[in-house]
């Protein structure tokens, strides 16, 4: 589903935000991405939905490679993904409903199918009652849930979530996490960047920890190493 091969990403003034990063995520896997502020989590996600291109190395997502992809193929890639942004990115002048429907319209879903899908997604995140509210009429947590609903609505093969619970209380956080697990159970791969170590500890999903643009811990590698050591 995702393969990073020796990926380096330099930003103009900063230097390397990612430095020789390699990892892969299988179909249907659930992976946490952690690390301190500025470690490079959002940068990895941007490379996956190809908003940024690597300075060096290769990013492969859903069969498309950052090395060979043509600009006009990027929309095709993104239609297979669901993305929850750290800063929500809702349209201020559209209702919650319209914001979710937007993702479907853009990809040419027939109008007749849109209504049902939208209300199902909003119900999933517990916001059916706020369908006709505008973003400014929603609390921070409610906006975050609208963003999640938008990412879910077109049944992506891979869901990318950047800090999707930053504005949520513990109960809502558990709710959203359960939602992501359900989606994952139905076959969608999930990659979630988060600061919430509780979530990581409480579940036994794979987690990758970043620091200063390098992978400093990958629970899958650690497990393999432990098994190897045990086998010796």
């Amino acid at each position, binding site marked *: 589903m995702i393969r990073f091969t020796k990926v380096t990403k330099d930003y103009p003034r900063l230097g390397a935000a990612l430095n020789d990063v390699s990892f892969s995520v299988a179909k249907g896997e659930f992976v946490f991405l952690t690390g301190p502020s500025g470690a490079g989590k959002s940068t990895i996600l941007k490379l996956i*939905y190809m*908003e940024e291109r690597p300075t060096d190395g290769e990013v492969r997502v859903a069969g498309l490679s950052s090395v060979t992809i043509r600009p*006009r193929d990027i*929309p*095709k*890639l*993104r*239609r297979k*993904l669901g*993305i929850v*942004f750290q800063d929500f*990115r809702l*349209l*201020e*002048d559209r209702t919650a409903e319209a914001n979710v429907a*937007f*993702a479907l*319209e*853009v*990809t*040419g879903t027939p*109008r007749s199918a849109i209504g049902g899908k939208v209300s199902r997604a909003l119900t999933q995140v517990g916001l059916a009652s706020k369908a006709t509210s505008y973003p400014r009429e929603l609390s921070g947590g409610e906006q975050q849930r609208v963003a999640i609903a*938008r990412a879910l609505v077109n049944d992506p093969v891979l869901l990318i979530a950047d800090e999707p619970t930053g504005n949520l209380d513990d109960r809502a956080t558990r709710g959203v996490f359960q939602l992501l697990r359900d989606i994952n159970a139905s076959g969608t791969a999930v990659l979630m960047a988060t600061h919430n170590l509780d979530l990581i500890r409480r579940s036994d999903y794979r987690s990758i920890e970043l620091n200063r643009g390098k992978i400093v811990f990958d629970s899958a590698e650690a497990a393999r190493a432990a098994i190897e050591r045990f086998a010796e």
Partner: protein
Amino acid sequence: MPAVRDSLFAFRRAPLLSALSITTIAFSLFAVGLFGLVVVNIRQALERVEERVEIRAFVAEKTPVEQIALAANEVAKYAEVQSVDLVTQEQALERARRELGEFKDVFEAEFLPPSLDVHLKSGFRDPATVHQVADRLKALSFVEDVRFGEEWITQLYRLRNIAGVAAVALGLAFAAVAIIIIGATIRMAVLARSREISIMRLVGATDGYIRRPFLIEGFVKGILGGALALGLTWLAIHVVSGYLSFQTVFFDQRLALVGLAAGAMMGLVGSAFSVGRHLPQV
């Protein structure tokens, strides 16, 4: 079609911006239209004036009338000639009185010679042809003098040429200005919607999809601008001609359609150009 709905939505969402661009299209076409009408009317006036292009061959006083009549028939057969009038001494006096207006009481004596007044066919009224015919007339034995207002004909043609060149030049200049303004308006629309566009891209919209509403918007605004310009031009012409009480001609249906099409084209070209340039920067 969501693109159409989106572009109409743009009118509701930014009524002022939309009104502004329609108005600018309308104003530029209006200017072109006004100028075009001036040209149309000048041309018409010129045609009417042109009909008065005539060559007057004064006949020696003692020439027998039969000889003049014969010569007149001869001259009437020239390819360039439309008609030949024989003007007797009495008619010449009458005409002089009419033409010289307030001094008419003053002309008492019969001092004007008879003449052959030659009208040329339309298409043969340019200075060169007039000269040529005048020379042939001069060659006739009984003709004493030939007059044809050379200066005047040359001026007339020069004026017509200036009007034509100015029409094309001003038309092009205004079209360019209008396209630039539409482009600017669309650029503003693109900037105003830059957040929306970037989100569209992130959820997988193709460039064509993003571009379409802007093109439709430009097209519709162009049509509306063209219609408004036609209306304004019509109004302006009627007010002016009513006030100054002179006869004017309006565009015919075909020209009106050309105006609408020009508006649509300007809208489309301006927005296509602007979207093509500014969309990648968002």
